[in-house]
């Protein structure tokens, strides 16, 4: 497989007094589609610029295929960047933009032309070779930038929020195309985004960042289904957060005393013990909502409440259920499910329940 590994260890970066990166370490695998995901200002671009060579870290090390690349200028690194604003050369045609990296080397005219046309075809722009960038749509500019970044056959492609300037529909389309291009060229992609759905849908693995730190690295499923911190849980889609203390262990689960709410069963204690304070999370779509009176099974977590609000949003309905303790639980129910919860509305008394397996401890403190 083509592509390279990227080893990032202990990277810090300060701008004056402000620490933009506070010790980031990551191991990105060969040929992986790796996403850096986090809210705006968390340091994603800074990290990408350090890999690309446009910013020097205050400390730490970056290796590509085991080689320390920090001493190398950007033009000597086997990494190319797709810039957020595309950064196409306005004085050159699409063809010349893509040919730019080759014109810097001495490459025979014929093979240059073949290469340029190959990459223009790859991004389906061979019909627009003679146009100036100003004559292209946002999506087309994006593709020129990708073709231009790929033509040097880098082992790493760095993409900084490449889709943020596109409208929602085009964004989805381009994302799928990026995924296909990644499959075709097989090199390592480092993809920066603040959009969790983008990251979840195409990444092999994701690093979730916040305020200069990497909070969790994992596959989309791991990140989504077992977030390691409250922040990750809340940033990656909507979730329910429950605070409590581990009350007892034994049998098939641990029981957490969640104060006024009652007792919540958890299967995986993640190393915490009886007496520790913990924060739990459970995804809204894991919750079932049923009319009161339908017996909940002994094995599930189940609570009684009233529907505070129900929102119909296309393929699913969102319910906000106020429990007797006053806590509000979010419940998502996809239409076309078994039909349970059908017809539930405002002020209805309901039972909310979920499988203890779907409850995760995201944070805790020794009690």
């Amino acid at each position, binding site marked *: 497989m083509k592509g390279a590994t990227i080893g990032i260890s202990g990277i810090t970066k300060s701008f004056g007094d402000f620490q933009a990166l506070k010790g980031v370490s990551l191991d990105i695998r060969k040929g992986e589609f790796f996403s850096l995901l986090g809210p705006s200002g968390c340091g994603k671009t800074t990290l990408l610029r350090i890999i690309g060579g*446009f910013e020097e870290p205050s400390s730490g090390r970056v290796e590509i295929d085991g080689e320390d690349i920090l001493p190398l200028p*950007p*033009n000597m690194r086997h990494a190319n960047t797709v*810039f957020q604003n595309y*950064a196409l*050369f306005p004085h050159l*045609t699409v*063809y010349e933009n893509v040919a*730019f990296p080759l014109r810097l080397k001495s490459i025979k005219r014929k093979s240059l032309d073949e290469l340029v046309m190959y990459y223009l075809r790859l991004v389906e722009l061979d019909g627009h070779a003679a146009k100036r960038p100003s004559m292209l749509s946002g999506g087309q500019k994006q593709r020129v930038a990708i073709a231009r970044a790929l033509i040097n056959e880098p082992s790493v492609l760095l993409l900084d929020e490449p889709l943020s300037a596109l409208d929602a529909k085009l964004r989805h389309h381009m994302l799928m195309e990026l995924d296909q291009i990644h499959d075709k060229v097989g090199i390592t992609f480092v993809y920066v985004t603040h959009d969790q759905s983008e990251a979840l849908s195409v990444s092999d693995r994701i690093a979730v960042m916040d305020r200069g730190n990497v909070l969790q690295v994992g596959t989309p499923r791991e990140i989504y289904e077992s977030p390691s911190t409250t922040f990750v849980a809340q940033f990656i889609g909507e979730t329910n957060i429950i605070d409590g203390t581990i009350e007892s262990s034994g049998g098939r689960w641990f029981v957490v005393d969640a104060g006024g709410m009652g007792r919540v069963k958890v299967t995986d204690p993640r190393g915490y013990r009886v007496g520790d304070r913990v924060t739990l999370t459970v995804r809204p779509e894991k919750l079932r909502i049923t009319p009161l009176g339908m017996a909940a099974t002994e094995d599930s977590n189940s609570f009684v409440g009233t529907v505070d609000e129900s929102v119909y949003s296309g393929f699913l309905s969102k319910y906000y259920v106020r429990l007797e303790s006053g806590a509000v639980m979010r419940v998502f129910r996809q239409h076309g499910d078994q039909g349970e919860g059908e017809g539930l509305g405002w002020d209805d008394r309901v039972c909310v329940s979920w499988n203890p397996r779907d409850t995760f401890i995201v944070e805790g403190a020794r009690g």
Partner: protein
Amino acid sequence: MSGPKRRRKRNYGTIYTLPLVVWFTLFFLVPLLIIVLFSFLAADIDGGVLPRFSIAAFTGLAKPRILKLFVNTIWVSLASTAITILMALPCAYFMARSKNKTMLLILVIIPFWTNFIIRIFAWKSILEANGVINSVLMGIGLVASPLQLEHNWAAVILINVYTYLTYAILPLFSTIEKFDFTLLEAAQDLGATKMQAITKVLLPNVRSGIVTAVFFTFIPLLGSFVVQQLIGTKDMYMLGNEINDNIYKYFDWPTAYALAVALMMLANVGLVFVMMSERKQARTLGARRVDEAAA
């Protein structure tokens, strides 16, 4: 798009441009015509012209002395312009990238507040035999007798560059300021060295600023004469000096006007040259476009 509606919509373009047309006619076209007209008339002995057609002013230019003035004018203007642009480019670049743009801009403009002649005299007091440089050099014992720093080509070109640097920096600054500097990062990312990024990406994109700066420098330099008079020697005189002398010393107006016409032609040669290279660029781009469409 119905007919009557369109007709009702009057085109006021001519009315808006009328003041400009009047202005240009009065203050540009009329004097220009007078210059051309007078150059084809005979000279009156005490200045002025006689109403008699004559090409004597032009035929009189075919003298080795005048030819030398042409040569001086062209090479001094070209050399001064080239040095000015080469110095202005990095200045404008760093100004555009600086955080204190306004401050630097003011610093560049401040010398403008002083009269041009005064500034030349300031330079004289730096360069002359008992001037600043010589006093320092002799004071520290580096030289025994004062160096001849004025009355040479280098001094003339130095002061030309000094005078026109601001005129070159300003248009360059305003175009470079609009340049998207991430393009330089992109170029480097794609394999260009810093220098290649500048020559292959920055310069082509600020071309219009360079062209303006060249004109702002080269064209006034073609007609300059004060610097040669004050800092140069008679050997360094240019066409501007000859025009000045013809008006004030020889009272030969038609020759002065003929020289002015020649000077204008010279300036226009530069203009046409630049315009042709621009058109050629557009044409090759067009040709490439057709090639690719055919392929």
